[in-house]
């Protein structure tokens, strides 16, 4: 065994070993104490911090998006609703490879280029743990196919959502508007916390104007999630408050009649109840199906709409600024009476043209042969231009514009829907400011017949007509009558808002003009006589044509179209019954030609529905008529 020379001193070795063992034990105890200090530090001193971190880990706040309010017409016809749909959502941080995931998903559900492009745009900008929608409105079959394969796609899930649907299609699209995905710019202007979980926002029309009311208040849910982000249970929740339902003043039946009456024409029809400013019809044709925009329109369809020469996306009622043409004569005539510069029975002679002193230019009447002797009544019935050249010159531009402005023709009407543009009543001051030029007398002349610088939207024209019909009572046009709480059924009526009334010098003057306007429709020579001879109620109206000054340089039309597009716009304003007005209408048919032949029959159809079919001519409780 051991070599004899190396003697082991067992006693000494044992003592050495014992010492070393004691050292080892001490070493062990010291290190264990170190561990204990570390653990006391974590579990006692920093416990609160880590307890919060632990809760932050497991507790997540999930938004509960509110249900958007429904929109009804005045009779309860549903115009905008929410339908359930399933969409495919992706949580970026839980997906390893997005490209592969999308490719594999393609085998189960159809994903268009547009879907993918939209998704990728949002994928780059949104937070990693928030779900992003890849596809909306999955078919039942697609939902089933994905559900079976769901385990293959961590971070991808199906979410049940409500999407906006407009059951009447394109009907009243320019009044309702539509909703679409929230874009970058809108994101700057909204309370983002209230839009957690909401992808859509009102883009135009009532949907935009009443966004706050329709959207509601977001709810929150505290949920416990595991490390993979799956919700395990709800800890606490505040339910969302749904948006309020809107009841519009629009009448879907009249709206449909108006849109059908315009048919293939481009134009606008506005009907207002002069008694409370309710907009009954707000038609701009052609229209489009707002359902295309919900959940994203594909670019091809969008470009087709945008680039169409008929401009279906253009809201003619609110944004179309047309010369009022001869429809303005009612107002200018009234101005003449009110300012006392016109003797109603005094005639002037119309040779078919008019000339200013010291000017060779002949201002022509639409009737080349002339109207002969013309008094105020006849000037409106036959729409004599020469009479108004003379009257305008007598009044002067200052009095004309001062008189027209209270009718709201130089302002926004203030209607409660978005996108309205203001009309224009020219004045010296305006011309100096806008054109840096002085006012010329010739411009006063053409202002008198509603040409020149005058511009008016169909809505403002209808509103001014309503104001005329009620002897200067100027109500703000309104499109929403009431809100309704979907939970409680509480209805809140919106008040009628009066603008400053047009000052009235003498009621007889207004009565005279209204009488003359009934002659426009009901007398033998009236320019709108074709809608008057069989009317069971009295209509006051005025036709108009607005010259088209030319086509835009960059537009191309086939020759046939050029002829059509160079024709005058046809206008007609009317209210009925003439002396107890319950509806005021303005119609504009672009390149329609004659106001009496094209625009007036459309107005008649709309008024028939309201007064006859809807029974407003002879209300059942007739005792209260003022």
């Amino acid at each position, binding site marked *: *065994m*051991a070599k004899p020379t*190396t*003697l*082991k*001193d067992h006693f000494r*070795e044992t003592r*050495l*070993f*014992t010492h*070393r*063992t004691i050292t*080892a*034990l001490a070493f*062990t*105890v010291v*290190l*264990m104490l*170190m*561990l*204990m200090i*570390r*653990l*006391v530090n*974590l*579990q*006692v001193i*920093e*416990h609160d*911090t*880590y*307890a919060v*971190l*632990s809760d932050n*880990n*497991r507790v997540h706040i999930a938004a509960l998006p509110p249900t958007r309010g429904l929109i009804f017409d005045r009779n309860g016809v549903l115009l905008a609703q929410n339908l359930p749909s399933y969409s495919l959502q992706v949580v970026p941080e839980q997906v390893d490879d997005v490209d592969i995931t999308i490719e594999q998903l393609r085998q189960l559900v159809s994903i268009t280029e547009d879907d993918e492009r939209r998704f990728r745009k949002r994928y780059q900008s949104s937070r990693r743990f928030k779900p992003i929608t890849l596809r909306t409105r999955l078919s039942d079959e697609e939902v089933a196919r994905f559900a079976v394969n769901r385990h293959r796609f961590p971070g991808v899930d199906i979410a049940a959502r409500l999407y906006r649907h407009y059951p009447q299609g394109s009907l009243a699209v320019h009044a309702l508007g539509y909703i679409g995905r929230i874009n970058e710019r809108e994101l700057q202007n909204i309370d983002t916390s209230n839009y957690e979980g909401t992808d859509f926002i009102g883009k135009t029309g009532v949907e935009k104007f009443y966004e706050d009311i329709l959207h509601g208040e977001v709810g929150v849910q505290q949920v*416990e*999630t*595991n*490390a*993979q982000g799956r919700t*395990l249970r709800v800890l606490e929740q505040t339910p969302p408050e749904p948006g309020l339902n809107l009841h519009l003043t629009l009448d879907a039946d009249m709206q449909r009649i108006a849109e059908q009456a315009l048919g293939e024409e481009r134009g606008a029809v506005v009907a207002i109840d002069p008694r409370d400013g309710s907009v009954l019809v707000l038609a701009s044709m052609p229209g489009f199906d707002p359902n295309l925009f919900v959940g994203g329109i594909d670019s091809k369809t969008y470009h087709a709409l945008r680039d169409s020469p008929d401009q279906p996306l253009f809201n003619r009622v609110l944004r179309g600024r047309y010369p009022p043409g001869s429809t303005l004569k009612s107002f200018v005539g009234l101005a003449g009476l009110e300012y006392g510069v016109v003797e109603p029975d005094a005639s002037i002679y119309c040779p078919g043209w008019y000339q200013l002193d010291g000017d060779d230019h002949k201002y022509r009447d639409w009737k080349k042969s002339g109207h002969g002797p013309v008094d105020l009544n006849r000037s409106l019935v036959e729409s004599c231009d020469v009479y108004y050249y003379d009257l305008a010159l007598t009044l002067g531009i200052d009095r004309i514009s001062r008189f027209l402005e209270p009718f709201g023709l130089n302002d926004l009407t203030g209607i409660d829907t978005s996108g309205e543009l203001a009309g224009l009543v020219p004045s010296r001051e305006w011309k100096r400011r806008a054109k840096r030029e002085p006012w010329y007398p010739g411009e006063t002349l053409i202002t008198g017949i509603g040409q020149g610088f005058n511009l008016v939207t169909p809505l403002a024209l209808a509103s001014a007509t309503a104001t005329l019909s009620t002897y200067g009572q100027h109500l703000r046009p309104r499109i929403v009558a009431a809100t309704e709480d979907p939970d409680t059924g509480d209805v809140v009526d919106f008040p009628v808002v009066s603008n400053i009334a047009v000052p009235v010098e003498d009621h007889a003057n207004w009565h005279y003009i209204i009488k003359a306007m009934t002659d426009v429709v009901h007398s033998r020579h009236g320019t709108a006589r074709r809608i008057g001879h069989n009317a069971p109620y009295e209509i006051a109206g005025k036709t108009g044509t607005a010259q088209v000054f030319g086509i835009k340089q960059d537009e191309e039309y086939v020759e046939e179209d050029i002829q059509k597009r160079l024709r005058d716009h046809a206008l007609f304003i009317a209210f009925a019954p003439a002396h107890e007005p319950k509806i005021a209408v303005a119609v504009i048919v672009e390149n329609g030609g004659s106001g009496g032949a094209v625009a007036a029959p459309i107005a008649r159809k709309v008024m028939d529905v309201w007064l006859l079919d809807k029974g407003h001519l002879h209300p059942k409780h007739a005792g209260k008529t003022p």
Partner: protein
Amino acid sequence: MSLLDTPVHDLGQRRRSLSQSLHIDPSLLLGLLLLSGISLFVLYSASGQDIDLVWRQVVRLGVGFTVMFAIAQLNPAPLKRWAPWIFAIGLGLLVAVLVAGEIGKGAQRWLDLGVFRFQPSEVMKLAMPMMVAWYLSDHPLPPTAKRLAVACLIIIVPTLLIERQPDLGTALLVASTGIFVLLFAGISWRLMAAFAALGAAGAVLKYFYFMHDYQRQRVLTFLNPEQDPLGAGYHIIQSKIAIGSGGLYGKGWLNGTQSQLNFLPEHSTDFIFAAYAEEFGLFGILILLAIYLFIIMRGLLIAVQAQDTFTRLLAGSLVMTFFIYIFVNIGMVSGLLPVVGLPLPLISYGGTSMVTLMAAFGILMSIHTHRKLLPR
């Protein structure tokens, strides 16, 4: 030699207790059984109440205790004789695993023997202290400089082989089993300090002159995982949250949200201590550490009472290795030490390393129960 081969009861027949004839140390057994019981409870909770996993752990514990009992029956004398051969076989296996090793978890550690797979480095955890103890035990201690140099060589060769797998954690652990033998053999502290300084200098030298940038980056992450909160740091951050949120009394059994909701990674294996700390708090930890300390003290007592140099050195080294497991694991889980993949002895779910540990306890029991009963 012949004396050592003679069965104990042939020499002295006084006071032979049941535990002695079964070659069991009751104190150690009690400590190990307590740990096993805790392990099953914690595993049930940490695994998300996976009873199958608990049963598999029961089977492993069964295997472990069987191995321990079996080894306890062996006389330590043949163990000493076989030490060089076991060491040689271990070395051979390490070379084999480098040549023909199967890729397991990204590193070559496993050797597929057809019926089962095992890690040769586990063999080395026992073979190393046995070999060093065998080499030093027959000569006067403390060892001479020449003997010390050879012992260092014995330590370095397998350490480098394991490091090449690469498995730095196990390599350091295996090296430390040998170093503990040297410490118990009484090498001077001054020499030990010199070795430590040399090792540190070598590491620094390697870091600055012999590493690529990406390797340096790895070292930095290794030293400070929290600078990489989604990668290596994620483990340690979640682990600290689990421990810290446990507080004094813990969240209660089955109520640890960090482990139950999968925020805590490796919650049944390497990070089980965090799951335990979350549910049982500081008081639970005190109990656990008390059991560990009890086992260590008992083990060191066995070492002191051992009757020859080989068994003393071996016993001391095995006990201290057991402690190193505990210290490194808890230190890493609580963010005190860098993350190296060492399990918490007897609590973590897992097979091979537990069997090795139980074999070590078998050796301890064998050493203690095969003593020659000398007259007082």
